[in-house]
């Protein structure tokens, strides 16, 4: 089974359960703070996809300059709503400096909520050698936002 592109099934359910807060406060939760979301990279041997429920270090890329669990996502965009679509997009690129690995998948997960999975993105096999790896996010708009609910 290969890595694939998917909004995780568990995330859909957990949205209705109020586990994830991308912006503002949720009066139903004890801690009224915005959750911290992270992005982790996986090797081509991974099987991250719709069935992924939480971050796992299994088949995550490994390098001295890559911290297990990946990087925190810059979450500075306001949740958008346009054309009957709600959307969220990280407000900055994810990048790693002076690394060597091969990856084809980014898993976004909620590190404030027991590392619950949000979505995975297969961007094709990419090999970095003693260099920098940068993931640039799409335009924060109803037709392109990274995660959209139409």
């Amino acid at each position, binding site marked *: 089974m290969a890595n*694939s*592109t*998917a*909004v995780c099934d568990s*995330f*859909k359910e957990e949205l209705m359960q109020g586990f994830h807060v991308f912006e503002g406060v949720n009066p139903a939760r004890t801690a009224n703070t915005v959750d911290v979301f992270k992005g982790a990279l996986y090797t081509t041997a991974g099987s991250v*996809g*719709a069935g992924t429920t939480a971050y796992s270090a299994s088949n995550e890329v490994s390098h001295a300059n890559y911290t297990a669990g990946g990087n925190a996502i810059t979450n500075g965009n306001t949740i958008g709503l346009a054309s009957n*679509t709600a*959307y969220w*997009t990280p407000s900055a690129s994810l990048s790693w400096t*002076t690394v*060597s690995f091969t990856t084809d998948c980014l898993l976004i997960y909620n590190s404030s909520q027991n590392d619950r999975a949000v*979505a995975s*993105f*297969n*961007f*094709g096999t*990419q*090999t*970095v*050698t*003693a*260099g*920098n*790896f*940068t*993931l*640039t*996010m*799409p335009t924060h708009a109803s*037709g*392109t*936002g*990274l*995660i*959209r*609910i*139409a």
Partner: protein
Amino acid sequence: MMIPTAAGPIARDDLRVEFEIKEEDMAFSVACKWFHDKEEVRRDVWVNMKCGLDATTQQGKIGG
């Protein structure tokens, strides 16, 4: 200027650079490949996500 590589710092003038552009379903990427003689000693990659996912569409589909 010295460029950090897998073979240690190498003078910029001693390196040859090639760019490789690929397009996938949901992203395009640019790889900057640095060669010393014929050996690739460094590769930087930029992946640009073209668009994200609509949570209400079939898994594995993008855009829409």
